[in-house]
């Protein structure tokens, strides 16, 4: 028995440490493919589909610099035109309501709130890289995907208990992410389609986030995607937000 036990234990140990290493590496690659652009701009067409199949349509312009500066300006429909969100480093977020001609800070700790009626929470849009936030574990690898289980790193709070991330084997692009809530139930599924290389970067021109609980879906279609156009820091100011 003892003779049997030792090699098995050894094997197990080796196996886990080996997997651990690769999992971390894979996630680094995923980060690289997701977050390596210096800046980006796109027009996004947002469709919200509620549980009765009712659709709401919106358009917004999105400016992003690095991983921690982002400005979203809604342009369509007319009644929300001008509403904007600005995210700055260190969890500083502003919302601008044109009817009030005022911008207000949005509390930083509320990460589980959905952003502007979509199925993305502030946390989902957080500018942290995967590796900063999650502890990866490689579940399996098949012909097309690395399947990683991500659990929150110590000291990082999350509204999710774990993520299951499917990264493409060929380019490490995270094609699908399953989000599990704290009770361990599947809560949301993110699916990316039409993954293309624009300039030096891979980008999904269609993204779908489905909230299983609410039976509510957000579809994003990107247009005019531009990378590395040297966006000025002036764009990411409250003054510009209120313009």
């Amino acid at each position: 028995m003892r003779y049997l036990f030792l090699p098995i234990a050894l094997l197990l140990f080796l196996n886990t440490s080996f997997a651990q290493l690769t999992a971390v590496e894979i996630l680094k690659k995923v980060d690289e493919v997701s977050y390596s652009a210096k800046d980006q701009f796109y027009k996004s067409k947002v469709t919200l589909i509620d549980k009765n199949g009712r659709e709401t349509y919106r358009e917004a312009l999105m400016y992003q610099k690095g991983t921690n500066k982002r400005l979203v300006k809604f342009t369509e429909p007319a009644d929300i035109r001008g509403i904007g969100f600005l995210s700055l480093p260190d969890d500083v977020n502003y919302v601008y309501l044109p009817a009030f001609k005022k911008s207000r800070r949005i509390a930083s700790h509320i990460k589980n709130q959905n952003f502007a009626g979509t199925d993305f929470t502030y946390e989902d849009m957080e500018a942290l890289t995967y590796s900063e936030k999650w502890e990866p574990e490689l579940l399996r690898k098949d012909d097309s995907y690395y399947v990683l289980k991500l659990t929150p790193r110590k000291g990082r709070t999350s509204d999710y208990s774990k993520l299951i991330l499917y990264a493409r084997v060929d380019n490490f692009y995270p094609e699908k992410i399953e989000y599990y809530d704290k009770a361990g139930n599947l809560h949301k599924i993110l699916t990316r389609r039409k993954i293309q290389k624009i300039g030096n970067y891979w980008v999904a021109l269609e993204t779908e986030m489905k909230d299983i609980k609410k039976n509510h879906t957000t579809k994003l279609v990107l247009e005019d995607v531009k990378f590395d156009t040297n966006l000025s820091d002036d764009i990411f100011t409250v003054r510009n937000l209120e313009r």
Partner: protein
Amino acid sequence: MQKFSNFIINNRKILIFIIIVLTLIFAYSMKNLKINSDFASYLPETDYAVKLARNIGNKYGGNLTAIVAIENEDIFNHKTLTEIYNLTEKLKYVDGVSYVTSLTNVIDIKGTEEGIEIGRLINEIPDDQQKLNELKRYVLSKDLYKNIVSRDAKVTLILCKLREGVDKAQVAKEIKKVVESEKITGKVYYGGLPFQMIDMNQLIIDDLKILTPLVGVVMILILLFSFKNLRGVILPILCVALSIIWTLGLMSLLNIPLTIISDSIPVILTAVGSAYGIHIVNKFREDIRITNPKERAKIALSEIALPVILAGVTTIAGFLSFVSGSYLTMIKEFGIFTSVGVLFALIISLTLIPSILSFLKHERMINKVSDSQQDRKLVVKLTKLISKFKYLVLIFTVLIVVAGIVGIFKINREVSIIEYFKPETNVRATEEMLKKNFGGSLPLYILIKGDIQNPEVLNEIKNVENFLRSLEDVHNPQSIASIIEEMNNAMGEGKKIPETREKIINLMFLIEGEEIFSQLVSPEKDEAIIQAMVTYASSTKISELVQRIDNYFASISSKGIDVKFEQTGMPLIYKHLDDAIIKSQIQSLIFALGFVFLIMIFQLKTVLGGLLGIVPISLTIVVAYGFMGYSGIPLDIATVLIAGVSLGMGIDYSIHFMNRLKVELKESYAFEEAISKVLGTTGIAILINVLSVALGFLVLVFANVIPLQRFGIMILLTMFLSGGATLVLLPAIILTFKPKFLRKLLKQVEIQKQVEIK
């Protein structure tokens, strides 16, 4: 009737075989019998209140809330909040639950120095006491949380909204399972209609299981005592048992569930159905000087068949009166299936009993003669007594009727499921607790049609909310208006509705994805609802409340703003139930009375005879309802049936009595003589029947469901009343007025006629 009875007896073997086969089929299908105690389903689908409630249910994620209440010393402790969080997350996944709202996921809107916070009230459950106390202070300071945390912070609620069109009791069961598996520290209560339905379903099953056999035992004892032989016991009981199996089997086949009232069907069939058997067996015991049992059976059956059929038909009419007269689905179903059950009992009594009896040798009871000797003496005395005091009887009757009519105006009404539970039940305790801390568990909804992004409309909603708040029985009204005010405040513009549409649109944009938003505003933003909780005091108070709210809406409709308010939810449904009960009471009473009147006319061939025949039963109804008024027994879903049931059953006594009287008058020289003969024969059968039915229904006093209990008491009363009225008042009236249509039948009349001719 001769033909009929020949047919039965000649085909007896086939008939017995058919009955056995049918019984097996129905008994097998009985296993699928369902139970339904859903109040909303008592009203027809076409009912306006039901439609509106369904509409709200579909649009806003349900209109019924299952309430899980957690009580301990102070709910603001890390452990309890963690438990609530876990439970909330789990309950969201229960099939049939649309929204779960609790302390750990409820929305919070805060304005701070530099910004606005919209998020959950609790993001991270604090574990140090100071933070917990801060949270507690904050929660208790806001109106928004009054509906989930009690003022003393000892009780908190997890509100589970149920999707429209689900099996509510089933979902409630699932919720219970999840909660029980969580092992919550502290006391857990289950409140609200869905949980009440679980308990009600259980009570219905318990009642059915316990009461039906109990009634059977009581009947057997009475029959044994009165017939002193096995035949007289086994045959009627057999008929009853078969008709119950047939009826429940048929209900199951047709997918008709048992309800709070239809679970009394077995009891009613036992009491009613046994009468036919008793009369038939009784007839067979009488002296018929034919020794061949087959021939005897034919004679006996031909003589008894007509009154038994008439009695059956009137009873069926009594029950059918609910079908035509009632707006309520459950009462309609009750009417149909009791009628069907009575029809089954009638058919089985008229076929099976004679068939079986015709195989058996006639057993003469040795002491029967001496018995009837004594009986004769007794009934002659009794008849003399009635004759002597006939005026007194009449005067007394008039007085009682007057008192009864006065009492009728004192009758209360009761439609709430809560009131149908006994005071010592958990359901009542939970309801009391919820009443004390949150003002009740009855959801009220106000539907607003108009442009919800229009400031004027929002202000109007605000006004309605304030009006509701001013009502004593309405608690914690919630609407989009109060949330928009909170947000406006957070934007630094004061706690009021913003003055422009644009501002409102901007604010709504921020909370559109929140669960609370979809529970309060329609996706098109052309409709919204105000939710509130209502304290249930009594049906009358609920009706008044509904009326007051409607009056208020009528008063604001003249402001020229394009907005429409409507109320729905349980109060309105209760009011509709309440109205429907009164309506069906009046209609079924008129229908049943009219029908038995016609039957009596048919039997006695004169209008006067018809009137005479319905005197005992009319008197019974008046006195019974008067009694309800004086004793505080309310008109509810079950007592509304008293009139029809007692009419249908009580009229049988008149029919049998008059039937026999006609026969005996032809053999007698004076009314007294004929009446004493009737009392000695049919009178005894009636007495046995009164006793057996009354004692049978006495069993209902042990019912768990209060309406059924009251129903039992009332039927008991009406049986004694109509029996007594038939055996005492009817003779007194006949002896006083000696109506012509009866006088003609007397032998001496024949002699007089002959004299006149000479």
